[in-house]
């Protein structure tokens, strides 16, 4: 989308949210809560921020995007389909036998997927490697990794945080979809990882703390990341799990359970308002 205005982005985000609940209902399994919390961030990336060519997915100068929280796959698949990587009707094959739309993204199975994720904690490291390769090749592409706050429990995330800061990988931007919940409950209760901003700053990162559902703030954060040199940037996006569907918002039941058909209809009605 050219010159995506905030209003246009909001419309795209609604479209993605409808795709997400429809896909997961059709699959009868999946993770609506974490897909919906990331929907605005992924919309901003695919419709505004990323330098990419859906018709030429292997373009060597493209920005790379890794969905490290692989269970948010429906949001990514919807963005890929809606930007033209593959036909929108393929979205309904999510999680079906033989479909390239695996339950969690797999590189090599589906066009536009840059890494195989779902085993949490690996995306930041992979992204750091991609950014280093770009530096060696004197290319200016950027690498974006979207991870979860529950995912920050993984030790590898902090290994990667040390590594990217040490090597001053400023073409790496990590977006932390901080929806405050993980499978077993509230992150504050399962394994409290706050203060996240202080932790990442202490690891040598530029940190921007903002509302992950406000496109004005989202775009401003991405701009600031692009202008940051000499260190990687962590975009600490404060989000709501299940955002956009009231009965899913902050509702732990919708971490990994598909909506019923009735719940789908209610969701679509609400999103259409």
């Amino acid at each position: 989308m050219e010159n995506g205005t905030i209003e246009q982005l909001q419309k795209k985000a609604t479209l993605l949210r409808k795709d997400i609940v429809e896909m997961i209902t059709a699959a009868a399994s999946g993770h609506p809560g974490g897909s919906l919390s990331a929907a605005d961030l992924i919309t901003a990336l695919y419709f505004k921020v990323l330098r990419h060519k859906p018709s030429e997915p292997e373009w060597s100068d493209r920005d790379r995007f890794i969905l490290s929280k692989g269970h948010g796959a429906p949001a990514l698949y919807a963005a890929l389909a809606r930007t033209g990587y593959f036909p929108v009707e393929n979205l309904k094959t999510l999680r079906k036998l033989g479909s390239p739309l695996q339950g969690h993204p797999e590189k090599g199975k589906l066009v536009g997927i840059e890494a195989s994720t779902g085993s949490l904690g690996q995306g930041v490291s992979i992204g750091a490697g991609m950014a280093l390769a770009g530096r060696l090749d004197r290319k200016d592409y950027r690498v974006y990794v979207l991870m979860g706050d529950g995912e920050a429990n993984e030790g590898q995330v902090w290994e990667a945080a040390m590594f990217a800061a040490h090597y001053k990988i400023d073409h790496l931007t990590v977006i932390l979809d901080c929806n405050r919940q993980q499978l077993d409950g509230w992150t504050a209760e399962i394994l409290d990882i706050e203060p996240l901003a202080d932790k990442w700053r202490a690891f040598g990162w530029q940190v921007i703390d903002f509302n992950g559902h406000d496109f004005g703030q989202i775009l401003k954060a991405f701009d600031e990341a692009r202008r940051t040199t000499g260190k990687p940037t962590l975009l600490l996006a404060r989000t709501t799990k299940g955002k956009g569907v009231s009965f899913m918002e902050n509702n732990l039941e919708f971490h990994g359970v598909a909506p019923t058909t009735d719940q789908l209809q209610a969701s679509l009605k609400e999103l259409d308002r």
Partner: protein
Amino acid sequence: MKTKSPSEMKAAVQREKKLGLATRDAYGQVLVELGQADPRIVAVDADLSKSTKSGLFGKAFPDRFFNCGIAEANMVSVAAGLASCGKIPFASSFASFLLCKSFDQLRMSVANPSLNVKIVGSHGGISLGEDGASQQSVEDFALACALPKFTVLSPADEISCRALVRLAAEHVGPVYIRTGRPKAPIIYTGSEHFQLGRANKIVAGEDVTIIANGLLVWEALVASDLCRERGISVAVIDLHTLKPIDEAAIIAAAEETGAIVTAEEHLLSGGVASRVAQVVAEHHPVPMASVGIADTYAESGTPAELMEKYGLTAKHLVQAVESVLKRKK
């Protein structure tokens, strides 16, 4: 002076043990040569580059070497990212840490998308000696072979190591190479042909075939000499590529000699014994015996003491040959 029997004199002149470089040293040298020829070659290490010898590459190409610190999981995923953007990363650490600490990263970051990453585990087996069980690697073959599409290599000496590392760099796809800490006896002359997935028959024989890899190839050669003195003709195969396994060579050995002994510096489960047995059982069942480490971790000691205590010497191979011959029809 005690007079030697004719057979003892024969054995003495037959095989002179000439120690070459450790395979880790050969790896470090050839990695530098590869780096000179191909700018896509990069290296990562986890604070063991002085021991794994990837540090030689780091000295030669500081811009293409990334020390990841003592963080193997991150290192393997970083290598995956480098590979997905066209680099040919060699990731080195001790075999035990690489396979055990970063197994999930090998699984999802590397093997799942089948990326062109070369994993080089030094200090393989127990022959690193005194550092003990935490540093020794007795399960790396089993783990590496469990990764779909991985090629798994274990060179026997510096000459085969150079050849196999070069072939690994040319091969497009994930590779695991085990190297060793101690100096390795020279097996090859340098004129032999190496091909990934094609075992090398080093000695012809009629009664039994020993199929070995790594340092056990030398022990197999000595065992074949000792057996010859006893009138037993033993063939020796260097199974430098454990995966994909050379089925044709194994089936031919079963057909020609009718009995097989395997030998490895690894647990008896999941390595040479298991993989050869699967081929033999499916295609041409013959009696087998295996030399390797029983269901245990080893301990501190000199390399020679450990190889003796854990049953990995030519003497143990001769016993295995004799036992398998009793079961041969």
